[in-house]
């Protein structure tokens, strides 16, 4: 089961879950992903040690997609 989560002040919140075969669940996840992007969140797919990818669209095959806030110089 793939998950779309958002890091927030509760630690993290699971926004959507889907499987590759479940079109309706994936469509709901895509909608949620786009809403989070509209709120300023950035989609990131962790890909094992030392690697992650920025995504603008929800990848159907990803196991975990994390929505994070932008970073900035302090």
């Amino acid at each position, binding site marked *: 089961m793939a998950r779309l989560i958002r890091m927030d002040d509760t630690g993290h919140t699971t926004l959507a879950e889907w499987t590759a075969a479940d079109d309706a669940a994936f469509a709901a996840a895509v909608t949620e992903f786009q809403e989070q992007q509209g709120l300023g969140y950035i989609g990131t797919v962790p890909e094992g040690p030392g690697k992650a990818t920025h995504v603008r669209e929800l990848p159907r095959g990803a196991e975990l997609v994390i929505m994070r806030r*932008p970073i900035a110089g302090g």
Partner: protein
Amino acid sequence: MEQALPELASVPWRQRTDARWLRRWGRIWHAWTLLYTVPFLAAGAGMIWLEPLSAPVALAAIAHAWIIPELYAFRGASVVRPKGPRNETAEPVAQGLLGDLLGHEQRELQRTTGLALERGALGTWLVGEAGALLVTPGGSRVHCFCVRTTEPDLPPSDRVAHLLLALRVDEQGFATVANHAFAGAPWRVRRRLPAAMRPALKTAQRAER
């Protein structure tokens, strides 16, 4: 899918931070340190040589030669000091997610020191809640970067995870977005780190030797 950090759009004027940029800034910081240290030492020694009665003033000059570099090193070490709300209710959940992003050894190091170790092409990073240290190859220099998530109320581990994910997406982009605060010898930074964090810097140095 993309490998450029989207936050780069907010700093279009900055030159991309690569290994060459880091070497140049390392040399500039080294020269700068000499520039504000040597004159005070020379003035102090000269005063004592010309007039031993001026020793108190000479000692004040020598003290400046010691205090100013210490202040810069303190500024560098401060980038990884814990800061912001502790958010103790949400922190265990955030710690779990961060732990999932780290390997076993890195997870243990992060739990004991608060710093997440990440090997990169530019060197070994130690990522904190609102900043990161980069130990460059050879282990003889550390660069201190001030960088944070734009949502300050997150639990500490989520703040670390934000920086870690951004670093993993685009290491040079991460260093470009961050503000460079200090570069110098690791021993200068280590003395000014909270005691619990010092083993992490030692581990990063070992990784780069």
